[in-house]
Each structure stands twice: as C-alpha cells, then as structure tokens.
C-alpha cells in the first residue's frame, strides 16, 4: 500500500497547527478512513466528529486541501498525489478540538426564524391539498443534511465574521423552504432583509459548489429570496401591486 502524507490540524480554541502523519492508503479509501487510521494507530486523542459514513448525516464536515467537504465522501484517489493532503476543521465556526467545531450557532439562528404557518385546511377531512408541481420546488431544499459546508465556505461568515448580521446560506435554504411552501401563510421578507441580512450575500455561488446534496442554493433559494425582498422593499411598482404577498 502506498504511503500518503496527511497534514491534520491539531489544536483547540486557543490555537493549533498542522501535524504530519503517514498513512497506508488502501483501495477506495476516503479521507475519513485515513483520519480513523491515524486515530487508531498514531494519535488516539485525535478528535473527529462522524456518524453515518454515507454522506447523509452531515457530521464529518471539514476542509480537505482547503476546500469544504464531507470527509466520508472525499476519495483519497481523487486528490493530488504530489502534495500532502491537508485536513482542517471548518473555519467559520469556533474550534472545540482538532477537527471538531462548535456549530451550535446555526441552531440558535434557526430558532429565530418565523415558524411554518399553515393556512386553514382546505379539505373536509382537515388536511390540505397541494399540487405535486408546487411541492417540488421546496422539496429541493428539504434535501439539506445540515452539514454546514455552505456556511463554512461563505466569505461573509468565514472571512468577515458577520455572524451577528448574516444568517448564511443554510438559513436561506431553510427560509426558502418555508416561504415557497404553497400552504404557508408566513411572511419572512422583512426578517430576511433586516435580521437575517440576505443583502450581504454577493452571489459568489460558493455555497452551491460545495453542497454535497447538490442543492442549487444560490439560483433557487437565495436569488429568489432577494427578489422577494426587492418586491416588498425596493421596488415601488411591485409594492403598489402587492407582489409577493400571495
């Protein structure tokens, strides 16, 4: 088996550094396999969060060779062989230890978003009728596994640390899921503009690129939400016509 050098970030909230490990990489190895091997054979105290190893739990988010990825879905064979493979924790969130970050901020932000507000049931049995065509749009957003890679790559959070003014792509996907639901009666546009700070997004589309569920975050969630904000905040004609208040 070929020896491959991994440089893994070791440390905590007070600081840390990349440390080198040589790993015997077997056929079909993913980065998480290599991390587990390091943990088992060379660094028993290496902290890493993982669960399903199938790209569905969103636990093993990290930065592999500088790009946000799920470690369990990143094959070592697909990475350049001529340089060491770097593995860092997500840079948008505080480090707890080694590759584990504190992502609790996301859950706190999510709690502040206006809940689902269904209309009165429109069927005699007390349920709702929705056309599948109308349901498909928000269904795309329900694929989100909350890995927070989109939050990690977003420069507004990652580089500018605007956690107090900007909710991030994951939260916009969540809001889009609610706003575009055919039976939802809530109106989160003012909250989007003022509290969640959708205007800080400058459409780099990095969130879409890193999404392991291939949700078209920018084009299908964020830009449509920005347009709804324009309807109700900046466009006098749309305001006059009451656009976006269906």
């Amino acid at each position, binding site marked *: 088996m070929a020896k491959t050098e991994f440089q893994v970030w070791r440390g905590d909230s007070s600081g840390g550094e990349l440390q080198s490990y040589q790993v015997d990489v077997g056929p079909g190895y993913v980065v998480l396999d290599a991390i587990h091997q390091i943990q088992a054979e060379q660094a028993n105290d290496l902290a890493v969060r993982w669960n399903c190893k199938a790209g569905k739990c969103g636990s093993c988010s990290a*930065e592999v060779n*500088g790009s946000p990825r799920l470690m369990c879905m990143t094959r070592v064979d697909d990475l350049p062989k001529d340089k060491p493979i770097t593995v860092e*924790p997500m840079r948008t969130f505080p480090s*707890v230890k080694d590759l584990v970050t504190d992502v609790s901020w996301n859950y706190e932000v999510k709690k502040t978003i206006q809940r689902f507000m269904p209309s009165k049931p429109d069927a005699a049995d007390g349920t709702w009728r929705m056309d599948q065509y109308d349901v498909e749009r928000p269904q795309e957003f329900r694929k989100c596994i909350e890995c927070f890679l989109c939050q990690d790559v977003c420069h507004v959070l990652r580089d500018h640390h605007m956690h*107090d003014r900007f909710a991030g792509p994951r939260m916009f996907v969540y809001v889009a899921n609610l706003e575009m639901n055919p039976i939802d009666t809530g109106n989160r546009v003012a909250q989007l503009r003022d509290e969640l700070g959708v205007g800080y997004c*400058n459409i780099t589309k990095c969130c879409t690129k890193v999404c392991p569920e291939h949700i078209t975050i920018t084009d299908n969630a964020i830009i449509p939400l920005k347009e709804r904000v324009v*309807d109700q905040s900046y466009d006098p004609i749309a305001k006059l016509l009451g656009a976006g208040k269906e």
Partner: protein
Amino acid sequence: MPSTPSKVTALPVKRGFGETLRPDAWWIQPVVVGLGFLAFIVYSTWAAFQGAFYSSGNLLSPFYSPELWYPLGEVSEHALFGAQPGWWPGFLPYSPAFLILWAPVSFRLTCYYYRGAYYKSYWPGPPSCSVGTPGTGYMGERHFPLIIQNIHRYTLPFALLLLVFLASDAWKALWFAAPGGEEFGLSVGTLVLTANVCLLGSYTFGCHSLRHIVGGGIDRLAGRPVRRTAYECVSWCNKRHMRFAWFSLFWVGFSDAYVRLCAMGIWTDLRIF
C-alpha cells in the same frame, strides 16, 4: 439573532487576501474572467466612440441598434429619425451608440451572474471559494453603493425591447439591394446578426428577475398554465445563464467587428444565395 458563536468564543484567525490551503490554480478563473470583461469593456468603449463604420449595406452593428439619429457627416439608411438632433451639445462628442449602450450595460452590470463574477475578479471578493478576501468593512449589497444592484428588474424591459430591434435588424439583413428594389437572400452577415439575437435572447430570457416575475414570485403555479410554461422556459435558460452570458457577450462584440470590417472595406460580406 444570536451574535457570535457561544460556548467557545474564539473564531479561527482570519486569513489574509489570497491566503488558502487550496493546492489548485484557483486564481486562473478570476484572472481569465477579469481579463475577458476588461477586453470587452475596452473594445466596446472604443467601438462606441468611433461613431462611424457601424453599418454596411443591410447590416447594422448591434452596438448601434436601434440607430436613432446618425452623426453629422454620415448618412445612414438605418436611422429611425434622420440626422443628429440640433439639441445635442456641440462640445460633446456624438455617437449613436451613446444613446443605446446604457441599456445593455446597465442590464449586464446588475445581472446576478455578472455580479458574482466581477465581484470575484475585481471587488469585493473573494477571488475564489475559500480563498481569503481583501480588506475589511464589507457591506455586501445591503448598503450603498451595491444596494443599487436591486434595480436589475428595471433594466430588463429595455433589454427585452432591444431584442425586438435586433431581431428586426436580422430580418433586414435578409434583404439585399437589387435592381428595381430589394431581393431576398442570405449572407454570412445575416447569419452573424441572427446568431447574435438568438444568443442575446437566450441570455435575456434566462434573467433571474424575469424568472421571478413570470412565476418564481408565487407559490402556486399549478392551474396557471401560461405562467407555469413561462416559468419553465425561463428556468431552462436560467440554468444556462452563465453560458449564454459569455457566448452572447463574445458574439455581440464579434458582430460589431464583423460589420465594422465590412464597412471599412477590409472584409466583404460573403453572399450565400
């Protein structure tokens, strides 16, 4: 909204401009995009200031379409209202392109695709995903000046109107001067102008604001066949918005160059039939 993450207070140290652990050549794309935009801006500005050699027979450069008034000293059969108006200040240079180009420029400048692309190439970053951004005091599109980008939907009608004129130009390019009137025909120039309007149309009809207006802004499209079909058509173009943005940008410049070379006598428009 909760402020900075709690429990563990320290966020990772910010990286400087351009810093990253990415081993790939991440800088190539923003550099190529930036140079592509720059090349187009330089060429289109130069072409707009020429005020001459913008039409050749039945061909009219898209930078000059619709031609409202032709400049003094020139005579153009494409002009809608004749010669340069007397109210144009004498100290200002005049070119028919000045009266037109503000529409496509404002449409492209505020386009969601272009915004993301030129922010990466020029300002306010990041130059590429997970690469350190420049400077501090980021304000995004939340405050002045970039909050102005929200006028994008107001530039859309002008872009749509231009398509009508460009389609008309492509139609006119099918008719050639002949003894006793005009005759139907086809030349390479006809194909160039037809491809131009098709590419610009594909780009314009993929506009995010148009997608919102035709159906994206409402939550129930079932039972609304016209809006649903329109939404699906615009969404099809929207998925290819970046591709059409580049193809149409290149082709509109090429169309101007083609007509210009013909008008200058450097190139002859080849008649197919």
